[in-house]
């Protein structure tokens, strides 16, 4: 009997300790010193942030916690993290729409040091009346159609090519692009490629390059025609232009359009890196991914950018799509000490030499702060090209208007519709109709 009692007491004690440990983990933040908890949006640079955090902690003794959400799950994670007692002190929103969700949690950046360093003050997120600064852009990115110049040169050297230009840089509009691409498809065996474009990845959750980034171009032109920054009702006036480029993507791809529903972004980047295809739509963030593919054949000198031409009049001067959806928010719910610690951390990252080194070399960010000199830019080839395009006054960069797209539901539905169009189970008119309807209903849902 006695041993039984002992055992039962031991069991209960063990259980109670487990419970106590479970509950007690979080209570260390009241040590007077502020702490930083950064919710990172970009999984591709998760390790870099952890390294930066560790280095900062070593140098200053301030604890920096970095958590990264897996691709496509940021909102979910943020929602649950923000409900905790030790909530993130620094998190990301993707523009005006994200600000609407999180506005009660965003502190004003106006009086901070880092804001005074911001170069592109006009792209920061302000409230409805244009006052305050609630989202701080921390990176500028650009995207377009990436091409492997080695394959392009091979094509332009062919004696029987159907176009009279002699380099990819001379492609200045959609018609030329189409002529080149279709001729390349016809000669793909000679060129040793499986298709001109990598797979148009339309698997659920992998379709953001098309439903947001390609879609950005027609929406940009529609906004521009109307002289607005956002619309309650999209007419999708440039839908034929979207169809132009999308048809070109799916019909000259290495993958049969019917099978695109199983392809991921990784698949298509691997196809590009291995030299199986000549072009792929993506942004400067893709360089690390391409470089990291086993057996990568694309060299730094050979990777180049083309703007996304869609057959809009006057597109000869069109540049890359340049902007950001990376805005940092300082949590207004965090304690003052934590807020200050977070600001100090950001200042260190973007203004100290050690921090800047990480930003340029490891994160590969084009940072929109004046603490970075002319020469202090990432040396990866795509970032260089984006900066060139940005500084070229002759061409018109396409701003990132997709931050005004109404909701994730809109994007998901549109991506699914594009897949059905590619598979032949929906007509283009149906897709267009769905876009117009969904845009209106999702924008209306936001208003409620």
């Amino acid at each position, binding site marked *: 009997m006695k041993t039984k009692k002992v055992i039962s007491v031991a069991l209960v004690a063990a259980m109670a300790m487990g*419970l106590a440990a479970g509950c007690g983990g979080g209570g260390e933040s009241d040590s007077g010193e502020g702490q930083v908890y950064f919710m990172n949006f970009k999984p591709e640079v998760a390790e870099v942030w952890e390294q930066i955090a560790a280095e900062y902690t070593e140098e200053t003794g301030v604890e920096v916690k970095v958590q990264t959400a897996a691709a496509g799950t940021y*909102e979910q994670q943020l929602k649950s993290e*923000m*409900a905790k007692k030790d909530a993130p002190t620094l998190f990301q929103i993707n523009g005006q729409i994200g600000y609407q969700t999180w506005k009660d949690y965003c502190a004003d950046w106006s009086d901070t040091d880092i804001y005074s360093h911001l170069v592109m003050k006009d792209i920061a997120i302000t409230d409805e009346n244009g006052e305050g600064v609630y989202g701080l852009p921390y990176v500028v990115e650009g995207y377009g159609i990436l091409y492997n110049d080695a394959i392009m040169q091979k094509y332009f050297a062919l004696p029987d090519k159907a176009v009279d230009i002699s380099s990819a840089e001379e492609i200045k509009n959609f018609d030329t692009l189409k002529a080149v691409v279709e001729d390349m498809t016809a000669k793909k065996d000679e060129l040793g490629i499986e298709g001109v474009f990598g797979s148009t990845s339309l698997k*659920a959750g992998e379709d953001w390059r098309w439903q947001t980034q390609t879609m950005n171009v027609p929406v940009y032109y529609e906004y521009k025609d109307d002289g607005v920054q956002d619309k309650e009702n999209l007419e999708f006036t440039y839908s034929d232009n979207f169809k132009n480029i999308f048809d070109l993507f799916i019909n000259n791809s290495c993958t049969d359009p019917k*099978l695109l*529903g*199983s392809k991921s972004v990784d698949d298509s980047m691997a196809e590009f890196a291995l030299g199986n295809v000549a072009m792929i739509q993506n942004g400067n963030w893709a360089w690390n991914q391409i470089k990291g593919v086993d057996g990568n054949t694309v060299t730094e000198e050979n990777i180049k950018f083309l703007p996304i031409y869609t057959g809009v009049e006057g597109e000869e001067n069109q540049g890359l799509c340049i902007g950001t959806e990376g805005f940092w928010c300082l949590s207004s719910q965090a304690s003052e000490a934590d807020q200050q610690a977070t600001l100090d951390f950001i200042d260190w990252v973007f203004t100290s030499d050690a921090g800047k080194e990480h930003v340029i070399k490891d994160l590969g960010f084009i940072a929109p702060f004046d603490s970075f000199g002319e020469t202090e830019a990432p040396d990866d080839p795509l970032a260089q090209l984006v900066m060139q395009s940005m500084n070229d006054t002759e061409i018109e960069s396409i701003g990132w208007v997709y931050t005004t797209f109404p*909701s994730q539901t809109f994007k998901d539905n549109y991506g699914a519709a594009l897949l059905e169009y590619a598979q032949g189970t929906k007509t283009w008119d149906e897709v267009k109709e769905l876009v117009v309807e969904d845009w209106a209903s999702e924008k209306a849902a936001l208003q409620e």
Partner: protein
Amino acid sequence: MQKAIKKYFPVFALPTLLAFFISFLLPFLMGCYLSFCEFTTVTDAEFVGIENYLKAFQDENFLNALIFTVKFTIVSVLSINILAFFLALALTKGIKGTNLFRTVFFMPNLIGGIVLGYIWQLIINGVLYKFGATLSLDAKYGFWGLIVLMNWQMIGYMMIIYVAGIQNISSDIIEAAKIDGANKVQTLFRVTIPLVMPSVTICLFLVLTNSFKLFDQNLALTAGAPGRSSSMLALDIFDTFYGRNGWEGVGQAKAVVFFVIVAVVALTQLYFTRRKEVEN
């Protein structure tokens, strides 16, 4: 003895009760409350009344998901239970390697739903590729894909329960039936099945509720593709919660409705199959 149980009740039951309260009852009650609120994070919510429920019922996707789920449940309940029962019958005949077979059939149940979903996605897409199609071409591929997956996963588990039930039937009764001249089919329907009704109750309940609540497998296999046409209820709730700003409450309202549906269906089934149970 009775006294001892009373005395030690708090010691043994309290930790579990506490855990049940913290991680089950409390979130459940909170969820019910949140379904009447508009919120971004669960800790600050604003009461808005039944608005969320109105939106939930007007949502076409919810209705489609409900229909898809019901269809799926009917097919999987039938196929899983019938196949599992016959497997159990076969594996109680004392053929060689019975234990090995039982183990192998049970094993898929040990793999997590997400993993299974991705594995089957590869397998099914691999086959469909040959015919120039993928799982996302049509909702029916997703539907049958899910059926195959769930059968593969759950048959083994249900089989074990049936095996236990069948082994429980005393050989006297079977022998008596034989002596009375009952043939194999008669023995099966008049003796074996009525006597394993308790197992049937459990198996039906498990498959029914699991099919209704299916989420991981659905998410991993099709994620609703094409569009949302192969979304089941749980996935639709998830998508509603995260897909739109300000719709978190609607997702929560759907979840409460979902709970009611599952509870009603499961309890009805329990009531009816319980009545069919007979004493061994």
